[in-house]
C-alpha cells in the first residue's frame, strides 16, 4: 500500500504553527516514515507547480494554518482544496480567525491610517500610502491588495477537520496524525480535540469551588495570584470553563488565566458571548451599582471573549467595517 500524501501550508500566519510541527521533534520522524510529505514550504522546496500537477484529491490531507486576508492566500487555499481529500484547519487563525482576526474590530482604512499616518515615529508629511500599483520612474511596482476583513479558513473553502490552539498542542497534532494513519478519524466537521472544558484537565480544578462567588473581576497585574488555587475563584477572568481542553493548561501552569485559544466547546454557537455568559454568571453582584463595580476591570469584553475568534463569531466584524 502506498503511503498517504500529506501537505502543510500557511496563509496569514505568525510561524508559530510551523514551529509547533517542528516541535514534534522526534515524533516527526515517525510521521515522515509513515506518510509522504509532498508539500511543505516551510521545510521543503515550494512547488506550486507540483501541486497544480497533482490529480484532484491526490493529496490525502493538507494542514493549513493562518487566517486569510489577501487574494494570494485565497488562491492557494482554493488550489489546495481541489488537490486534497481532506483539509485540516490548523491552529486558531485557521480555525477561528486567531489574534490577527481582532483587526475585524477596525476598518482596513483604520489599520492603514494607524500604521502610516498616526504612528508615533512616522514622518509622512505627504500622507504617503503603500499602493497596489505604483508608477516608479523605472516601471510599475505592484503590491497585493489587503482585503477589508480577516477570514478564517472555512469562510473561503470547505474544511473537514479543525485542530485548535495557538499554536495547536503537540499532543493534539500527534493524535490527529495518528487518527489519519489508522483511519480512525471522527465524522467530518469534527474538532480534533477533547469534547470537554479546559477546567477538567486543569491542575487546579480541585480548588475550583462548586459555586464561584466573588464581587469583582481583577486584572492579572492587579493581584498576586496564588499559584495553587483556581484563577477564576481568585477573580481573574479565566476562560477555562468555556474553552476546549487538549493543551494541558500550560497558561495556568504559568500562573496566568486561560485566554481561550483552545476554541469553542461542542454545541457553542458563538464562542465570545458563550464565554461572556459564563463569566457574568459567576459574579456575586445583584444591583446595577455593584455590577458596574464587579465588571469595571473587564474593560475590553470584545477583545477578551473574542480574543482568538472574532471572524468566527456570529457578528464577524465591527458593523460597517
Amino acid at each position: 500500500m502506498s503511503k498517504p500524501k500529506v501537505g502543510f501550508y500557511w496563509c496569514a500566519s505568525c510561524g508559530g504553527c510551523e514551529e509547533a510541527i517542528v516541535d514534534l521533534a522526534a515524533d516527526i520522524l515517525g510521521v515522515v516514515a509513515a506518510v509522504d510529505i509532498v508539500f511543505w514550504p516551510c521545510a521543503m522546496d515550494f512547488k506550486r507547480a507540483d501541486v497544480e500537477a497533482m490529480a484532484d484529491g491526490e493529496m490525502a490531507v493538507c494542514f493549513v494554518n493562518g487566517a486569510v486576508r489577501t487574494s494570494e492566500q485565497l488562491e492557494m487555499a482554493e488550489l489546495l482544496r481541489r488537490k486534497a481529500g481532506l483539509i485540516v484547519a490548523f491552529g486558531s487563525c485557521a480555525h477561528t480567525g486567531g489574534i490577527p482576526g481582532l483587526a475585524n474590530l477596525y476598518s482596513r482604512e483604520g489599520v492603514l491610517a494607524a500604521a502610516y499616518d498616526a504612528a508615533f515615529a512616522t514622518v509622512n508629511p505627504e500622507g504617503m500610502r503603500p499602493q497596489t500599483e505604483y508608477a516608479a520612474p523605472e516601471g510599475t511596482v505592484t503590491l497585493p491588495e489587503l482585503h477589508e476583513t480577516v477570514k478564517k479558513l472555512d469562510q473561503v473553502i470547505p474544511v473537514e477537520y479543525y485542530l485548535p490552539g495557538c499554536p495547536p498542542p503537540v499532543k493534539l497534532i500527534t493524535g490527529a496524525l495518528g487518527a489519519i494513519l489508522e483511519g480512525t478519524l471522527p465524522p467530518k466537521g469534527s474538532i480534533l480535540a477533547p469534547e470537554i472544558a479546559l477546567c477538567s484537565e486543569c491542575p487546579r480544578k480541585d480548588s475550583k469551588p462548586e459555586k464561584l462567588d466573588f464581587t469583582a473581576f481583577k486584572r492579572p497585574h492587579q493581584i498576586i495570584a496564588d499559584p495553587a488555587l483556581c484563577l477564576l475563584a481568585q477573580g481573574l477572568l479565566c476562560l477555562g470553563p468555556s474553552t476546549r481542553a487538549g493543551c494541558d493548561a500550560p497558561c495556568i501552569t504559568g500562573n496566568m488565566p486561560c485566554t481561550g485559544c483552545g476554541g469553542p466547546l461542542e454545541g457553542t454557537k458563538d464562542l465570545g458571548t458563550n464565554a461572556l455568559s459564563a463569566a457574568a454568571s459567576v459574579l456575586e453582584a445583584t444591583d446595577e451599582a455593584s455590577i458596574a463595580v464587579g465588571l469595571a476591570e473587564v474593560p475590553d469584553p470584545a477583545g477578551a471573549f473574542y480574543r482568538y475568534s472574532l471572524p468566527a463569531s456570529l457578528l464577524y466584524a465591527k458593523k460597517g467595517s
Partner: protein
Amino acid sequence: MSSKVTIDPITRLEGHGKVDIFLDDSGNVERAYFQIPELRGFEKFAEGRPAEDMPQITSRICGVCPTAHHMAATKAVDALYHVDPPAAAKKVRELIYSTFFVEDHALHFFFLGGPDFVVGPHAPKAERNILGVLGKVGLEVGTEVIGLRKQMRDLISRAGGKVAHPVFGLPGGVAKALSADDQAAFIAGAKHAVEFGLFSLQLFRDLVLKNEEYVAWITSDTYTHQTYYMGMVDGDNKVNFYDGQLRVVAPDGREYLRFAPADYQRHVAEHVEPWSYIKFCYLKGIGWKGFADGAESGVYAVAPLARLNAADGMATPRAQEAYEEYFQTLGGKPVHHTLANHWARLIEMLYAAERMVELAEDPELISPDVRAIPTATPDEGIGVVEAPRGTLFHHYQSDAQGVVTRANLIVATQNNAARIAMSVDKSARGLIKAGEVNDGILNMVEMAFRAYDPCHGCATHALPGQMPIKISIYDQRHELVREIRRDGV
C-alpha cells in the same frame, strides 16, 4: 528593451518578501525594489485592548521570536503602569530571555546560515539544507543541535507557560516565581549552552575561517555597506539584550549617539514608501536621504553585526575573547560586511549562554518576590529590547484604565529594511549584466536575507536552508519571457 524581473520568495512575516527588478535599455539593473507585501495591523488592533494584554497579543506578530515581542511589550507596560519589578523578577525575565537567545541563534545559525557556511555556498542545491549540514558535521552534532534547542525550549515553557507565545510577562514582574527545581534545570541547561556555544564557535573557525574562499566571500563588496549601527549597551558599553541604553556608531566607528530607549522618538523616525507595506527607519538627526551608504545618509543597521559594532565589548569573559578575535580577524571596527552577522551571532549565543549561567546560579533567582503591584495611573510606556534580529521598540499610550489608545511597534526588520533593500539592489546590479540574468541572483538575495535574518519568518523556512524564490522576467507588454525557480524546476 526594458523588462521587469520579479523575485517572489514565498515567505511569511507580514506576508512574504518580494523583489521587483527593473532593467534599463541595455539590460542592466536600473533599480531593484525589496518589498513587504502585507500588513497585519497590530498597531491598530492594539487599540482598545488592556495594556497588560499586550505581551500576549503582540507575541503573535512572530511565532519564531514571540519571546522578543513578549519581552518588549512587558517592559513597555512596566513603564506605562509606572511600576518597577523586583530584582528577582528582572532576573527571571533576563534568564528566560537569554535562554530564548540561545535557542533562536542556534536555530538561525544551524538551520538557516548553516547550509551557506557549513555545507558551503557552492555545494549542490540538494545538499544545501539541514540534511547537508548533518552530512558535513555528522549526525551526532545534528542530534546535539536539535537536543540543545529542545532543552532551551522546554526551559522557556517551564518558566513561561508556553514556548510559542509565553505568558510570564506582567507589568511589575513575572507571573510565576521559580522553584529550586526550576533553578537546577536552568543551571544544567545553561552549562550545556556554554559548551554548545564554544563548540559552535570552534566549528565556525574550522569550517569557515580556515577556508580562504569563504573569508573572501564574507568580505566581498557585494555584501558590504557603510552605514550607522545601533545596539543596546549596558553602563560599560557592553552588549546587552534585555536592558540599557541605545548606542549608535557612525560608519567610521565613532559614537554618534547614546540615548535612553524612552527617547527613541527624538532619534529614530520611520519613512513610508509607496511600494512596500514596511516602513523604513532612519536616524532623525541626519534625515532620510534615500537608500544610500555613508555618514551623510540616515540609514542604519541592527542585529548581531550592528550590536557588536555599537558596543565596546561583551560582558562575559569567553564571549569577550571571541569578540576580540572577531574584530582582529576582520580588520578592526566597525565591520561592514553583512555576512559577518553569522559569526557575530555565534559570539552572541555564547554571551547569552554565559549570562544564563550567571543568572541561573544567582540565589535571588528563586525569591518568591517577583511582582510589584502597580498603583500609579497608567498613561504611556516605551519598552525596548534587542531581539535576535535587532532592536525592537514597543510604545503604547493608554487611558486612565490602562486601555491602549495608541500604539507603535518598530520591529527589528524595519530598522534593517533600508539596508536590506540596498543589499538586494547591490546584488542585483552585480549579477544582472546586459540582460543576462544570472541564476546566482537567487542565491545572493537569499544569502543577504539570511545574514540579516529579517523577521520574515525566514527562520521557519530554515529546515532545508532554502528560501524558495521565483524570478519572473517580463517584457514591456508584461508577458512572461523567462522564469527561474529556486528549486531549479
